[in-house]
């Protein structure tokens, strides 16, 4: 033991030095990787590579579908990472983007709600414009993913054109026409307006003796209405409009607030809350704005309740709610191969198979015309011809609301005030509007 003694501190020093070096290495390893550039990094076309595609909920991309890409591209293996909810996926997406893009999948699914972030940091994404895919999507879908300078940052997957879902049994019970065509006519057909919708609602609530509300929630209804304004909260150059003097929004707010609470048209729920989910089983309301993906939520929440149907009509023209894109982060190793793969995955054929899998209504013009979509029916909604209905609803969409970087903060300020008034019964219409304006001022947007 004694003979080894002199070397002990030295060994310790070396060990300590090694551990410090290891830590330093780990730290530098963490910080490297944000040196991504937009250029293609695939040198050899036959190089064996693995592409990852990150999705959430259910995009309808089966393992067989992804494996079939390897058949035509033998050098590419595709892996899918699925997040349980879009919130999880969004947190993962923004956090990794904030870290310089390290760890993002080669192809990343992005909800239309996060597109403002993508557009704001367009340098972090690959420009996907390509003449081969130029007219693949509906115009307004392409517009949602196009940066001001004309770059196409995302390939559309599905869309959410809204129709009116209604309870035919409750309509019948309280003396309203219950056939889809008649209901569409009742709400104004082609000239359907929100005024008409609220007016019929007041009639319905009166006939039901106040037992059944007209729609589920103030925020869902407001969401549908605000989606029809071209510049709800911001000017097209991205500067926010002062909420205090935003007459359009104030009018919408007052309309929805008074109709929901004072006239009793809403079931006083906030969307996605526990009460809202439970209310589907309680005959609490008769109609709601529904994009294709909502039909799945209605079906799963309603468990056992029969009588839902879909009317091919939407107040105020068309409206879109939700839908997603595939983007290619610039930090990826194989951006060119990823772009090619994203183009393949959003081609009409693949999107058709996704529609069959997950009811995600395709955004591709070709796919919508395909009999597999156009002739499809939904048996839960009394065999409603959903393919036809949503194609008509998609065609009716004329306005793409401008959603800049501050859309969601301002929108939250207004919906919070609506919920506080109608769902939680606080204050007056005016005091809640003032609360929304105060919340806007606190953002310090100037």
């Amino acid at each position, binding site marked *: 033991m004694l003979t080894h003694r002199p070397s002990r501190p030295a060994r310790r020093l070396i060990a300590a030095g090694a551990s410090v070096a290891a830590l330093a290495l780990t730290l530098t390893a963490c910080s490297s990787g944000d040196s991504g550039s937009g250029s293609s990094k695939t040198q050899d076309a036959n190089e064996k590579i693995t592409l990852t595609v990150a999705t959430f909920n259910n995009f309808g991309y089966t393992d067989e579908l992804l494996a079939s890409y390897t058949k035509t591209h033998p050098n590419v293996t595709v892996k899918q990472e699925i997040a349980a909810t879009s919130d999880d996926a969004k947190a993962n997406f923004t956090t990794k983007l904030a870290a310089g893009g390290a760890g993002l999948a080669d192809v990343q699914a992005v909800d239309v709600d996060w597109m403002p972030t993508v557009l704001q940091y367009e340098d972090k994404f690959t420009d996907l414009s390509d003449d081969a895919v130029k007219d693949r999507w509906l115009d307004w879908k392409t517009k949602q993913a196009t940066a001001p300078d004309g770059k196409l940052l995302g390939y559309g997957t599905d869309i959410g054109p809204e129709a009116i879902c209604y309870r035919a049994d409750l309509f019948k019970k309280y003396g309203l026409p219950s056939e889809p065509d008649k209901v569409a006519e009742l709400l104004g057909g082609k000239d359907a307006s929100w005024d008409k919708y609220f007016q019929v609602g007041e009639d319905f609530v009166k006939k039901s003796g106040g037992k059944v509300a007209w729609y589920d929630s103030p925020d869902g209804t407001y969401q549908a209405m605000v989606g029809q304004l071209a510049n709800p909260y911001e000017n097209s150059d991205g500067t926010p409009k002062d909420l205090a003097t935003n007459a359009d929004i104030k009018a919408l707010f007052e309309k929805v607030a008074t109709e929901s609470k004072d006239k009793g048209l809403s079931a006083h729920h906030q969307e996605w809350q526990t009460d809202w989910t439970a209310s589907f089983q309680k005959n609490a309301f008769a109609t709601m704005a529904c994009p294709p993906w909502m039909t799945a939520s209605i079906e799963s929440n309603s468990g056992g309740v029969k009588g839902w149907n879909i009317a091919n009509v939407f107040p105020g023209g068309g409206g879109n709610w939700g839908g997603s894109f595939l983007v290619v982060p610039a930090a990826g190793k194989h951006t060119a191969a990823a772009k090619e793969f994203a183009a393949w995955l959003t081609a009409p054929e693949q999107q058709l198979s996704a529609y069959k899998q997950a009811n995600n209504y395709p955004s591709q013009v070709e796919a919508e015309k395909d009999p597999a979509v156009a002739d499809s029916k939904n048996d839960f909604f009394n065999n409603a011809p959903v393919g036809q209905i949503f194609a008509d609803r998609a065609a009716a969409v004329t306005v793409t609301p401008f959603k800049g970087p501050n859309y969601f903060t301002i929108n939250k300020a207004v*919906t919070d005030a609506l919920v506080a008034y109608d769902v939680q019964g606080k204050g007056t219409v005016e005091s809640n509007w003032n609360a929304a304006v105060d919340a806007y001022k606190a953002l310090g947007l100037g």
Partner: protein
Amino acid sequence: MTALTTAPTPPRVGPPEKRRRRVGFSQRLSRWDVKVSPYLYVSPFFIIFAITGLFPLLYTGWVSMHKWTLIGGDAGYTGFDNFTAIFQQGEFWLSLRNTFMIFLLSSVPQVIIAIVLAAILNQNIRAKTFWRMGVLIPYIVAPVAVGLIFGQLFADQYGVINTALSAIGLPKIGWHSNTFASWTAIATMVNFRWIGYNTLIFLAAMQAVPADLYEAAVIDGAGRMRQFFSITLPQIRSTIIFVVITSTIGGLQIFDEPRTFDTYGTGGPSHQWETTTMYLWNLGWGPQQNLGRAAAVAWLLFVVIVIFALINYFVSSRISTSDARRGTSKQSRGRRGSTDRKGATR
């Protein structure tokens, strides 16, 4: 170790000069060993602390002085603008109020109930291990699952509790719309999760209380209650202080329970149950993505926690010194007496 390292190296064969040099070098090494190696032994903690504790703390301070977005990063030095902006936000003060009230509503009943439960479990009951493990079950349920379960219980219109209330003719409680009710509901979730854990800590402390104290008390005719208040509580005082301090820190950083209290997790439309950590999260990772302001809130929360820790420290040291003073004064008096006596005899 010191003895070993300073032990003289046994002389070896070889030229005298060379031997002297070798001895000198090894002595120098030994001196380094004595002086440096203790620091090396404790260094891993400090290195890790510097990386995971000190650096984030200082870096957060650096970020809080800048306009800083989550994805865009640094956008210029702004001095204390973020802090002044935070101070002007009603939402920040509401979040402090909510944090403090939820902390009071959870920590106080939590500690009291845990002590009572521990006292019961400390008795000679049947199936002891079963009950002791039973109280820990809520702790191993994932917080998000707790959120889901309590979401069903505390729903405003169709929740289990409100359904039961209206069945017996009582008015429904607005668990989400009424501010105080929302605090109570969240405090219930916190208590559900932590009472069992604290009970076990108290139980361990109670089992360390010497049995002869109780025996003496029984002989003196003390009843159960008297034993509990005069022996058990004073004996587990330091454990109580520990639990109070840890639950204070946990209470001020409360996040999971209020976040899972509704589907959106942003603290209610009028910020009824938005705590300070949720406010921080909403600022930095919500749609605003304002990391600069979030960092400022983090620092302010740090200051608040330090203030609370100081109050805790002050109060608890008062308690322990008053305890110790009584003890030491008796001892010193005794010692003084004995030395006096010794002096007298001398």
